């Protein structure tokens, strides 16, 4: 599995480059996940707003609701939930797509044509994963904070100046870069695990469905493990 990653990374830098393939893949991952990302983000923001308000109002510090929502989303929930959604929506189909290519001998066919399947199939998918996740994560963050605003300001009557002012004063560049680094690395993790599991599929249609399950489960677990790791070194 590490050898696979190593070979793919080498091919990142080698010609021929196929920008069209890359764009297709970004489109694929982005479009597949966008709607669910927005939905998840709105509700995450709203529930954080609700929960946060009642918790903070016990200590009389409702004013801090804005930064509380924003920081949880930007540092933790944004990258992790984006990772989950992308795994479910795009990662699983990445695995099954690669798996079908493998069992129907289409990967072998590429090889017989003297075309490196890692370069042709895996590299654009991996690059797309790494590039798309931060973008989706940014969308998640914005929509999530807006969701919090809906609850806090429209529903619970907090002033919008307090909400956004608090965010502006308390969220630093460091917080944003933590979120960004997380989403970058989740992008790599998901596309690596999902393409690899598909690439080594064996034994027909059943093999493909097994590969998809194990890719999704492994991605979820690895996202959480890696999240803890990054958080602990970047606090």
């Amino acid at each position: 599995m590490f050898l696979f990653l190593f070979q793919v990374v080498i091919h990142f830098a080698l010609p021929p480059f196929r920008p069209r393939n890359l764009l297709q893949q970004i489109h694929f991952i982005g479009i597949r996940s966008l709607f669910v990302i927005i939905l998840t983000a709105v509700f995450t923001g709203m529930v954080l707003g609700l929960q946060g308000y009642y918790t903070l109002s016990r200590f009389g510090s409702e004013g801090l609701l804005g930064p509380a929502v924003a920081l949880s989303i930007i540092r933790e929930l944004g990258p992790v939930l984006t990772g989950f959604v992308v795994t479910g929506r795009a990662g699983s189909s990445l695995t099954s797509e690669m798996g079908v290519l493998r069992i129907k001998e289409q990967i072998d066919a590429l090889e017989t044509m003297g075309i490196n399947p890692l370069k042709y199939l895996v590299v654009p998918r991996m690059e797309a994963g790494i590039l798309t996740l931060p973008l989706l994560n940014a969308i998640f963050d914005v929509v999530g904070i807006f969701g919090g605003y809906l609850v806090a300001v429209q529903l619970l009557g907090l002033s919008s100046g307090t909400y956004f002012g608090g965010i502006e004063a308390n969220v630093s560049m460091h917080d944003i870069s933590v979120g960004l680094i997380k989403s970058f690395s989740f992008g790599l993790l998901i596309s690596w695990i999902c393409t690899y599991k598909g690439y080594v599929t064996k034994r027909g249609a059943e093999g493909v469905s097994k590969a998809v399950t194990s890719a999704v489960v492994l991605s979820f677990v690895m996202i959480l493990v890696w999240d803890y790791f990054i958080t602990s070194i970047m606090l």
Partner: protein
Amino acid sequence: MPEPTEHPNGSTTQPSALGPIGDILVAAGVVDKERVHDLLKEHGGGRVETELVGERLVEQGVIERKDLLTTLHEAFRKEIEAYQDAPDSTPILRFAGIKKTLDNRNVLDGVDLEIPANKITAIIGVSGGGKTVTLKHMIGLMKPDAGEVYVGDQALGELPNRKLNDIRKRFSMLFQGGALFDSMNVFDNVAFPLREKTKLSEEKIRKRVKQNLARVNLGAMGGKFPDELSGGMMKRVALARAMVTRPEIILLDEPTAGLDPIIEHSIHHLICDTFLRSRYTMVVISHAVPAIFNFCHHVVVLHQGKVLEAGPSLDIVNSDNPVIRQFINGELHGPIKVI
């Protein structure tokens, strides 16, 4: 003028001005030399045009398609008879003691074989006997556990990936399952190896793909996707894709399995026809026994992980080896235990 074709053994032969098919037709007295000359002048010559002489003559009503087919078949018949008398072709592919174990089964158990250059070789044997595995070794898709595969003088074993890819460019392969790319339509599937491996202009690629699809009688199917095709169509698209790059060596894994007898026959013709035009080395795995014996020079019989017999097809068809006899006649009783 057609360019000289370079043979793998290094010698070059100057092709005749009439092209291979033109030569055959003239020699058989079906059409006279002047007519072919005129035709070629009209169309400007070039390798492709000389190869298409037969089609053009049929189009113009000079000869009947039936005559074209029988003449070509007759010419091929003479070829294999000549090969039986003097089987002296240099091998282009060679297996030396290939062993391969898959799932604890010795699928190949010391296979030694030679594929003669510029001939059609058929590989036959019982289902599950390792024919596909053998073919995959030829192009380096599978690596032997022991032994060595040679392409020309080059051993595939220690070759780095880039060099292996260079060798693979001399091959093309038709997979048993077709292995068409699901995400592309028929036209793009056939165009794919040209787009990826050659620097031909898009216009030339289109022309060539159209020609190749027309030859397998699927000229109108370019826009369909693989999942919209019947099994036979899929095989024919895969065949067109295998031939479109004009490779030196073509590996065909059961090009006729699961097809109706007429299409099976037409594919056999197509293979011979392609051979007569271009003299590619071809390796065909086939269950179409005994028909296949009329469409190949050389036969390799695989049995229990070894080569049981190999030689000119006309010798094998008359072999008195009990296994081969049983296989050819499809008998239930004999050395091969069926049930």
